[in-house]
């Protein structure tokens, strides 16, 4: 069974911890290098959003990142107790085709996530956000 559970706190420095664990998982199961880059990126974008915008209190929270590979499909599940937020509803609109002068500096994270993954589902359940992403390896 190829799976890995990463539990982190809602502090941005946990990114190093996350990328280290992802690397180990890829190495252990000899998964393709490109998907490691893409998974790092996708997890960073989502984790960063949760940490920066998800909480209104100063308390410590835990974010769960579960990875599992079934046949040639990678499934990433990210679960948190932050405010309800469905990142899949966010649209980038015509931002990408604007001339550089009019182009906004930010707002790319979710677009990258949606493009790099093959399938995504969002669920709000018992006060938790559960985002499941699928990627064909």
């Amino acid at each position, binding site marked *: 069974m190829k799976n890995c559970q990463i539990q982190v706190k809602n502090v*941005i*420095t946990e*990114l*190093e911890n996350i*990328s280290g664990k992802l690397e180990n998982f890829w190495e252990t199961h000899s998964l393709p290098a*490109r998907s490691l*880059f*893409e998974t*790092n*990126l996708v997890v*960073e*974008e989502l984790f*960063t959003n949760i940490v920066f915008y998800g909480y209104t209190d100063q308390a410590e929270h835990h974010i769960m990142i579960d990875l599992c590979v079934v046949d040639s499909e990678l499934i990433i599940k990210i679960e948190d107790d932050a405010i309800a937020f469905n990142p899949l509803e966010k649209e980038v609109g015509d*931002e*990408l*085709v604007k001339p*550089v*002068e009019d*182009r906004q*500096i*930010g707002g*790319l*994270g979710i*677009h*990258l996530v949606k*493009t*790099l993954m093959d399938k995504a589902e969002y669920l709000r359940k018992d006060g938790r956000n559960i985002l499941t992403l699928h990627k064909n390896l």
Partner: protein
Amino acid sequence: MKLSEQKHGQVMVISIAGRLDTTNFQELESRLVQLIDQGEKFLVINCENLEYISSSGLRVFLFTLKKVGQQKGKMALCGLNSNISEIFTIAGFSSYFNLAKDEAEAMTFF
């Protein structure tokens, strides 16, 4: 992330090595702002040893491009690996930047 700088005539080459992410993009951004404020307006960012970038890093590149443009300067990027090139394409960035395969080619933009 490691940064290094080298001046070639009027062009300042900044080389980035390692990972550029949410934990360190501000370090790069503030260095670039400092250089531009000091009057450097012809920049090459050498990404040959840049292994990873997230949207935080993309922000720095776009911000710097705009800032250099305001100074009537120019900027080029070189040595993007295939993963980073893909991210540039998805972000719609490929048409904004002067992209070169290596530093020598990047110099031809100036």
